[in-house]
């Protein structure tokens, strides 16, 4: 286990930013942190990276306690903070050389070039950080976080404010990192979680409301399913609602319907048979999965 968090609580006065949360993460795993604004994602990350200590509970990174062995933890962790704080009046190379100094890395020149290559900064390497666009600044931030080849990477909204091309590249970068390191990332973008993460933790009001592998997340909310059907010609509603196991039919147009059920059986077979029996032609029929977005809304909506 590279990260073990147990009963972690952080209070700001009477308000609890995070409340008794526990989770763990393994090597080779990308863990997604989801939650509405102010849910406690950033607070958790700040505790893990030793920026501030918790009120109670423990957090361990690579077996090291973040409070008592903070210095060792900081050597093993790479952190990209939410707003990616950088020194805008420094040159890219100068900045990375400074980071090398902080980590006491020998042969820093070679490592700087490696990181510039790895994060795709080659074209911008002679510029001042202040002259870079947001996407490139994000790469500088990532280069800084990965500079010392840390075992654990904590990325707080690494893809916010990037254009679609940059998004794709940065995501590919993160995905490749996740193969050999432990990556924790927080995001607002649901598709990103589905695309990148192996596991999702959903936090709401300081509490973990879901901690599941991405595939089984949908089952968690409810066992209800939705089938979308489109017929060639108009079709009466009762044709569908008479089918055994159907709870509700939502008519979209004369030809298009959504069929809801709470049972576990697959309705598509019965719908097909019924349609054949009544000589109705089905043009399209698909089972709709609940997306992470739906799950998120269900879990964080009170």
């Amino acid at each position, binding site marked *: 286990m590279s990260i073990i968090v147990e009963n972690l609580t952080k209070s700001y006065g009477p308000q609890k930013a995070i409340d008794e949360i526990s989770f763990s993460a393994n090597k080779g795993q990308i863990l997604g942190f989801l939650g509405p604004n102010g849910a406690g994602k950033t607070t958790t990350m*700040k505790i893990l*990276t*030793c*920026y*501030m*200590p918790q009120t109670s509970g423990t957090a361990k990174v690579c077996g090291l306690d973040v409070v008592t062995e903070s*210095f060792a933890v*900081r*050597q093993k*962790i790479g*952190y990209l*903070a939410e*707003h990616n*704080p*950088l*020194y805008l*009046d*420094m040159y890219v190379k*100068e900045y990375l050389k*400074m*980071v090398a*100094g*902080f*980590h006491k890395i020998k042969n820093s020149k070679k490592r700087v070039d490696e990181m510039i290559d790895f994060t795709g900064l080659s074209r911008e390497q002679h510029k001042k950080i202040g002259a870079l666009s947001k996407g490139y600044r994000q790469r500088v931030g990532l280069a*800084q976080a990965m500079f010392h080849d840390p075992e654990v990477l904590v990325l707080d909204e690494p893809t916010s404010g990037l254009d679609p091309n940059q998004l794709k590249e940065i995501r590919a970068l993160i995905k490749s990192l996740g193969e050999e390191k432990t990556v924790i990332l927080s995001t607002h973008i649901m598709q990103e979680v589905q695309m990148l993460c192996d596991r999702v933790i959903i936090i709401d009001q300081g509490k973990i409301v879901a901690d599941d592998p991405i595939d089984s997340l949908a089952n968690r909310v409810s066992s209800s399913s939705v089938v979308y059907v489109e017929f060639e010609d108009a079709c009466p509603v009762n044709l569908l609602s008479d089918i055994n196991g159907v709870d509700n039919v939502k008519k979209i147009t004369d030809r298009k319907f959504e069929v809801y059920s709470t049972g576990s059986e697959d309705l598509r077979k019965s719908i097909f048979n019924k349609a054949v029996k009544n000589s109705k032609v089905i043009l399209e029929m698909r089972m709709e999965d609940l997306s992470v977005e739906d799950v998120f809304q269900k879990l964080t909506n009170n």
Partner: protein
Amino acid sequence: MLSILKKEINSFFSSLVAYIVIAVFLIFIGAFTWVFRDTSILYFNYAGLDPLFQFAPLVFLFLIPAITMRSFSEEFQRGTMEFLFTKPLTDFQLIFGKYLANLVLVVIALIPTLIYYYSVYQLGSPKGNLDFGGIMGSYIGLFLLSAAFVAIGMFASTLTKSQVVAFILAVFLCFVMHWVFSFMAKLPMFIGTLDDIINRLGMQYHYDSMSRGLLDTRDIVYFLSIIVFFLYLSFVSLEKRKW
């Protein structure tokens, strides 16, 4: 610590801060020492550098807080403190690295005034007729005084993310530490009773004593204690911000 020192010095010289500090200091001190009729050495009847050592604390009162106000306030403001705090750096490295960088800048501003010494040495009649011991003592005193001002300014900077607040606070604290005690000692209520003790609490007493060319360990210990005290306060204040 070296990497922090290097970072700070680079940032001084890549922005205008360093050049402005050095230029402003030399212009002010140069004017007081050589140009203004009331204070210029040229109108005195003996060779010495009194105006330099008399006015340098006053110029430093504003200039040093202007250097040190950036130290932590700017990092808090920009969020880069989060970057520094999550890197494997100890608080000691952070504070002492920044402290040394600020001090180096002040010393760089002071070095050109050695030319004044050479000039006065040449102007003396007969040549070289000046109080070498007094000037050496004054330089050491001025160095210790600036070192103390830098420590005070850095402490003020750890308290706030606003550079303006840090500046004003630092000016106020430096003023209190250097001047206020000797003013207080002159209040009628203290004369004859506590005036000597109050006088000794302020920096001015010790600075003046060193200017006479008398290197008293008590003066040196006094300045070192002030420096250590304010650096320690910075340390405590940084820890507080984290917790």
